């Protein structure tokens, strides 16, 4: 069955600010799914709470808009129940690095076969511009005119420290590259962390298109951890592309001894079971 961008569009009026990076991220995501020939009914998207989460009704598919910080474990539960579906967790830098950072860390080390899109707009935007751990130093934010006191978290460096199978970085305004990254992420048979550097014209005017254009260096694909670390340690440049991929890391489900021979998914297995064989004391 042919799938078209119209199949992914909804008639809900967008509520994002004019110029918000979410518009183009959604276009890239929809295009990636279409090029992978995925019907909306084959896709489960777990949205976090934040500006990104307000996209839950602006794309077709099976969507869950859950709790702040919890998009990842909800997606993990969905993935384990039915691997025939394409699972995407969609989360912002606030929810991902603050409320729910443990989920990101454990998802990477578990290497579940799903894709995490991290919308990094360097602030909590929906609550009107508070500091996150990716907010530039010294930038005046809600309640903190002198900027943040705490240090930063680098999504890339954190990910690389956990033996990941896939880490990529895209830019919200470069739809063709972002689309390719998302496609590769979905195709990867493990956990794909995709950090999207995202413009926020309302609360992060400094990190605008000019800012990113000056810094971005595009690469295609890299399999060397050393090289990946070099890309990330260069603070003057912003490398985008598939910063690191390692197909040798086995995904979680494939390592489950009791599921190896099973042809079915957990969703197809709900019925009464005899307990005779496990009744022994």
């Amino acid at each position, binding site marked *: 069955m042919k799938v078209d961008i119209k199949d992914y569009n909804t008639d809900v009026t967008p509520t994002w600010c004019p110029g918000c990076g979410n518009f183009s991220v959604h276009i890239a995501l929809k295009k990636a799914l279409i090029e992978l020939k995925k019907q909306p009914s084959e896709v489960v998207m777990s949205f976090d709470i934040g500006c990104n989460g307000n996209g839950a*009704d602006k794309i077709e598919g099976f969507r*869950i*808009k*859950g*709790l702040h910080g919890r998009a990842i*474990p*909800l997606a993990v539960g969905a993935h*384990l129940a039915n691997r025939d579906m394409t699972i995407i967790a969609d989360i912002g830098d606030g929810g991902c690095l603050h409320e729910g950072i443990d989920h990101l860390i454990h998802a990477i080390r578990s290497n579940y076969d799903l894709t995490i899109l991290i919308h990094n707009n360097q602030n909590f935007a929906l609550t009107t511009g508070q500091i996150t751990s990716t907010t530039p130093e010294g930038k005046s934010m809600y309640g903190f005119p002198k900027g943040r006191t705490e240090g930063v978290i680098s999504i890339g460096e954190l990910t690389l420290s956990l033996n990941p199978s896939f880490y990529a970085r895209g830019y919200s305004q470069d739809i063709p590259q972002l689309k390719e990254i998302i496609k590769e992420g979905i195709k990867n048979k493990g956990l794909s962390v995709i950090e999207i550097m995202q413009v926020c014209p309302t609360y992060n005017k400094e990190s605008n298109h000019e800012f990113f254009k000056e810094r971005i260096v595009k690469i295609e694909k890299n399999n060397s951890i050393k090289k990946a670390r070099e890309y990330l340690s260069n603070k003057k440049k912003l490398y985008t592309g598939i910063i690191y991929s390692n197909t040798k890391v086995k995904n979680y489900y494939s390592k489950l001894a009791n599921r190896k021979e099973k042809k079915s998914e957990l969703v197809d*297995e709900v019925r009464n079971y005899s307990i005779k064989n496990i009744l022994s004391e």
Partner: protein
Amino acid sequence: MKNRFSVKVGGRSGQGINTLGEFLSKAIRDSGLVTFAYREYPSIIKGGYASYQIDVSSEPISASQKHTDILLCMTDQSFDKYVNTVAKNGVVIHSIKGLKINEEDRRYIKRNRIKITYIDAIGLAEKNDAPIIMANMVILGLFWKVINLDLSILEKIVLDYFSRKKGVDLKAEKRCLKAGYESDLVKDIKLNNFPQEKRRNWQSSLILTGNDAIALGAVSAGCRGYYAYPMTPATSILSKLGSTYMETGILVKQAESEITAVQMVLGSMYMGTRAFTATAGGGYDLMSESISFAGMAELPLVIVLAQRAGPATGVPTWTGASDLSIALHAGHGEFPRCVLSASDASDAYELIQNAFNIAETYQLPVTLLTEKQISESLFNIKRLSEPQKIERGLVRSAPKRYEITKNGISPRWVPKKNKRTYLTNSDEHDEEGISVEDAPQVEEMSEKRMRKIDRLKKSIPEPKYYGHEEPTLVFVGMGSTKNAVIDAMPLTKKRLGYLHYKYIYPLRYEKILELNNDNVEIVLIENNQDGAFSKLIKEEANFYIPNTFRKYDGRAFFVDDILEYIKS
């Protein structure tokens, strides 16, 4: 006590007390008698004091008596701790060389005419070429002779167990049991209340903890995922499901936190399989926000809340029932929910199955309460009930996921390829799941969800009455309080009754109101201080029960507690 006998094995944590307790439970069961066994242990791995008490009867029992007829004791610390729990004319068999008894204990022993017998168990083990750790078996053997049961039954249980362990000298185990059994110390020990009447074919009865029963019930009900974070007293569900996962094929995952566990359950249930999690109060607190989410998004959710004593870390390895309030109220905002409460292994098995049925049919969070006393005690039951029929309330597809319906239940279907897609939303939403903020829509959807509770209330079973047909005193309660009251019934001439609640919320209260007449004294019994169940009945039935019997010292109600209460 009449028709009952009780033995306690005392030692330190890490000394194999649990194993001894299980040996005795099973061997006595295989000898044709009913057992109930409960554990006391500290929240440490080595040291402290630990015990296993096994109550024995010819009739079904499911609670402990406060005083044991015989104490088998292997450390002086546990002697100090437990000697004053030995019954009048009782016996202590110990293996503590140079045991020093303090003045207070000495007086207790004298006053109650307790016989203290020392057996050189270590010496006997060494004499039989066995490592000193097998001194346990010597004591066990002596005890077995005291109660005068067939040694081959105990031998079989012991050898079956150790033959599964690597490097255990089975013959030495056997020699030690025999050495104890043949010790002439037995002639000094007189115990005449060990039940003599054996039950027929009782070897085929089951010995299960409440947690075993929950795991078995979940498997039976088609649960395919179990995600949990370790926390006493819920942990052994994880070990039961984990150690049987090759047989069941269930996906068992130790999650990084309770929040992860409950979110994973929500994700899996949303996708259309059955999954659940279990925790104690602290972990349940962490799940609160997710419970609220399940209520709003109308996702099925099953959580087992295994209660222990106290707030915060509390008294983590001891029992209580002080988490009813949190089960009734966890989560912000208003949404329907269901609370169930098990009292023993049979209940636990049945209720976990119904928890799934209710959660799926009504699309709401269900909490199944247990207590450490239920989770970890060994219940000896004839058999488990027939499996419950699976009810899921699923449809193939429908135009609107959150359709406003008369009974509040909207169509739910499994997300799959070529099915109609929908948005599951934690925001208030319209019938199609789209976020809304307009007043009429907010009101309408909130009312729709709440209507489910009326329907659920009509469909859940009423509380069950046990006891005298024309009672003068009826206890009303939930959880393990049932076991102590029912065990007390044959031991008193008083016309006792017990109204047992398994389905706590929504609350059916017709039967309590029926009981209320001038000839009956109603007493609300709770294993907590604040009386959460009492408050629930007052709130729901507008019926206030002034007489309450509460206990909140980390211990379950003993049979003696009930007998003392009705005497006063």
